[in-house]
């Protein structure tokens, strides 16, 4: 069973001459343990795809299923619970709360979900320690570097028993070394069974994924073949269509 499935998803904004078709009949399935990158230029619909997949926005038509359950059949409360328990989000600008320490930021989704403060903080600390940030747990976001802030955001996105990790240009504001560190963490989460979707315009970022889907004008235009192993680099390749 796919953790995330989009079936014929379309999204239209505005009406009349201002009508914009952001997504057009998009099908996408992401299995547990897989990392899929959605690549496309600005305006191709990739951020809309992510907000719809994360139940932050409704599609105009089509269906989104998370862990086999259609979002359209859920109440507002059920969706809110799904966002707190099952889905983790990572954004380009980190979206950490400035008044909370790193540990408090990471524990927040669990506390909002009714977990006791003590248990939530303990789970938050474990997530931070796994990402090498145990010693920075009491620091506030403005006391952390950009790379550290994004690692805190990833810890917050994977804390508890998350099944789906959605990331929008997660290393966009970072240098290439910190960007690589972020992608290694996202890959590590996927290896532990989380399904991941990263939207990006950056080919280096996308190349961390098992599969790259190319979005163009709101449609899936193309996707990569299943990834060959690195050993194939050691034999000369003729390139496409030769």
């Amino acid at each position, binding site marked *: 069973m796919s953790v995330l499935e989009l079936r014929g998803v379309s999204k239209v904004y505005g009406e009349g001459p201002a009508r914009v078709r952001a997504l057009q009949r998009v099908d996408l399935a992401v299995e547990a343990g897989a990392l899929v990158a959605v*690549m496309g*230029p600005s305006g191709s619909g990739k951020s809309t795809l992510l907000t719809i997949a994360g139940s932050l926005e409704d599609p105009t038509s089509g269906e989104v299923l998370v862990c086999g359950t259609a979002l359209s059949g859920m109440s507002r409360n059920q969706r809110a619970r799904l966002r707190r328990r099952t889905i983790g989000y990572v954004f380009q600008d980190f979206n950490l709360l400035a008044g909370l320490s790193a540990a408090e930021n990471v524990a927040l989704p669990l506390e909002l979900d009714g977990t006791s403060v003590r248990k939530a903080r303990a789970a938050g600390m474990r997530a931070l320690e796994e990402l090498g940030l145990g010693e920075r747990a009491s620091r506030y976001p403005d006391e952390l570097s950009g790379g550290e802030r994004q690692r805190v955001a990833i810890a917050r996105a994977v804390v508890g028993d998350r099944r789906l990790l959605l990331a929008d240009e997660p290393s966009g504001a970072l240098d*290439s070394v910190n960007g*690589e560190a972020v992608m*290694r963490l996202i*890959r590590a989460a996927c290896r532990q069974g989380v399904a991941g979707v990263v939207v990006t*315009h*950056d*080919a*280096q970022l*996308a*190349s*961390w*994924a098992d599969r*790259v889907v*190319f979005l163009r004008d709101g449609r899936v*235009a*193309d*996707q*990569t*073949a299943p*990834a*060959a*192993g*690195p050993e*194939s*680099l*050691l034999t000369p*390749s003729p*390139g*496409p*269509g030769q």
Partner: protein
Amino acid sequence: MSVRHALLALLSEEPKYGLRLREEFEAGTGEVWPLNVGQVYTTLQRLERDGLVESDGSGEDGPQKSFRITPDGQRELAGWLRTPPDLSSPPRDELVIKVLVALRVPGTDVHEVIQVHRRYLVELMQQWTRLKEDEAEFDLGLALVVDAELFRLDSVVRWLDAADSRLRRAATEPPPPPPASLPRLRRRIGVRP
């Protein structure tokens, strides 16, 4: 890739035998550039002829012969490290030519041609990234080689993205004719064969 200068660099650390030079060359480049032992000895003979290395003179050419760098060799190496490679004129890039040709072939969708190449490049980048993920984290030489390849391929993908956007814009807004006074710079750009 200058095997000659790579061998000088390895000898700048201490005198070494030919076989060890080959092993260190391959390890230092993440084993991405294999080198046969014949290449090593031919290059060492030329370096010795040019006075850039000297051997201990004992015995025939072979695994027992040790080489050391000379002061002239050190000067040559220092000069080479600081000499930029020739990037001043663009290479005759096959991909650029294919995109230019696709524009003129009736019934060809240039965007589809661009996407075929973009997909191929991203698939290649996935393989390099897998190598980096699996093996390069603890091998500095390999990490540097893989990064260089990823940045090179990435720059080609970026060019394809830019070409794609430029062609879409040109299809909806034809550019105005250039002013008569614009200097013809284009003819002065040399293209390497």
